[in-house]
């Protein structure tokens, strides 16, 4: 058993080394994605049959904008062993993918490309092109990025006196500058309360500071099944009383998680919400 495994690994190292040399020039034949965000970009950009597997998170409605479409691909749990057995020419991951998995795959001679989570629309467009290029589908990537940029440019301008919004998630975390959620509400014509209290991209905002900041709108994260103490803060009586006063609220969904063309759907919904707020108030 042990001897055969060593032989397999050695064979893999040799085969992988040979494969790596040729992979960089031509389009990779078999691509595996092990990160939710690269999953969805690859699903949209890959040639038929090119994408072999996506991560199991891609089928999770709560975090994946393309959960339905992901049913067409086999899923993986981002573990080196199963990925290696899929014999990929290219593995797409996120910069937050477990380093041990990435280095194991690289030791086995597999080409692994990591993308940082997109925090802006500019980065999103760049990543669409990047994934297109990595898949050898430059034209498809370029077309999608252009469509993304065109739709973004067509949104109405930000109002002179934007309504103030607070983003609030489990454990009292909020998103500020440098986060995708901040980019979404800003482009939709809101001002982020996190700016006023000088919070970083993600920081803790005490509930009393949130309420005393008096935002026009509180956007909370969706709660998951299985209760948790972390999410209890989203049901705090003080927050409920405050939301009852402002009579407006919104919940982030899968469109807010990754930088994708679908992210602009979230911007569009927030613009509609702002317009209805302005009409009402």
């Amino acid at each position: 058993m042990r001897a055969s495994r060593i032989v397999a690994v050695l064979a893999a190292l040799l085969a992988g080394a040979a494969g790596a040399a040729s992979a960089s020039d031509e389009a990779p034949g078999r691509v595996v994605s092990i990160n939710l965000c690269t999953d969805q970009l690859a699903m949209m950009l890959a040639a038929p049959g090119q994408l072999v597997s996506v991560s199991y998170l891609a089928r999770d409605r709560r975090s994946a904008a393309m959960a339905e479409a992901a049913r067409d691909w086999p899923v993986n749990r981002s573990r080196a062993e199963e990925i290696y057995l899929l014999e990929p020419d290219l593995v797409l991951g996120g910069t937050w993918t477990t380093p041990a998995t990435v280095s194991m795959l690289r030791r086995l001679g597999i080409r692994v490309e990591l993308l940082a989570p997109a925090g802006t629309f500019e980065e999103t467009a760049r990543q669409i092109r990047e994934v297109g290029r990595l898949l050898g589908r430059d034209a498809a990537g370029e077309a999608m990025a252009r469509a993304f940029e065109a739709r973004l440019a067509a949104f109405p301008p930000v109002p002179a006196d934007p309504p103030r919004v607070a983003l609030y998630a489990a454990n009292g975390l909020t998103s500020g500058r440098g986060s995708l959620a901040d980019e979404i509400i800003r482009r939709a014509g809101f001002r982020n309360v996190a700016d006023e209290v000088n919070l970083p991209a993600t920081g803790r905002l005490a509930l009393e500071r949130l309420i005393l900041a008096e935002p026009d709108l509180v956007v909370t994260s969706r709660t998951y099944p299985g209760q948790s103490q972390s999410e209890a803060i989203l049901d705090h009586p003080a927050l409920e009383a405050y939301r009852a006063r402002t009579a407006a609220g919104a919940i982030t969904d899968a469109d807010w998680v990754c930088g994708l063309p679908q992210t602009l759907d979230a911007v569009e919904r927030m613009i509609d919400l702002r317009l209805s707020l302005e009409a009402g108030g």
Partner: protein
Amino acid sequence: MTRALPLALGALLPLLFAASLAIGPAGVPWGQSLAALVREDGLLTLVMREIRLPRALLAIMVGASLGLAGAAMQGYLRNPLAEPGLIGVSGSAALGAVIAIHTGLAAAFTLGLPLLALAGAAIGVALILFLAGPRGSSLTLILAGIAISALAGAFTSLALNLSPNPFAASEIVFWMMGSLDDRSMTHVWIALPFMAVGWALMLTLGRALDALTLGEDAAEALGMSLTRVRLTLVFGVAAAVGAATAVAGAIGFVGLVVPHILRPFVGARPSRLLLASAAGGAALVLAADIAVRLILPDRDLKLGVLMAIVGAPLFLHLIYKTRKEVA
């Protein structure tokens, strides 16, 4: 000396309570915030009544429960190292609370959370009494405590690992360290009835604990039923510590530090130490909870971390003092 103690604690508690209400991350002037508690002042009143008031009340309730439970267990076991956090009672209560929350029981049935935490704590206390026994040495007590803590911690981690909720894993810190951040009046109402029962049970133990200082035979000769004393202790400690842990997580060392400091002031009589430790525990947790907001206001410093920094050196000191017995 002994007369001064009730006066000192009686003066300290209202002061700390007011300070706890006046201090918060929002940095509103204290006069204005205290006034908003009684007089309608828009959002500030909402903040004071729904966020700061429950926090201050819970600090008192949790502190009193832990101080009282520490004094009662130390009196019964005649061992200054018996402390709910150290001997695994808080840990097993946390396990019960985690199971209640992550199975959805707490959401489906309001009393599910405190009841399961109480059950966990009761199992913890019963195991300790069974393993260490009334004549148990410090060594058996501490070893039994380590084993129960480790087991409860392992099952808590397992329950959180298996939870479908993505935040579950990060909650291990809360259940091991405890915090009073952003608790609500709901938590106060859930915990209060259980704590009140626990306090009442433990406070009836005064005479029995005094008699026990003369030894078990003497206590029985005085007409004490040791079985009844033991049962009262198990349920009293379980109800108070279980409810405290269910709403604030496992906060250690309160039951160790407070009776230790107050013992000389009450003439080392367990019956008088009980009430004094309840008041002292309330004062200590209030003070510690003010400190976590003053030291690192934006960093979510956990209450249990601060208590451990204060309490662990004292624990070492006590072990050093009793090391002859332990060795």
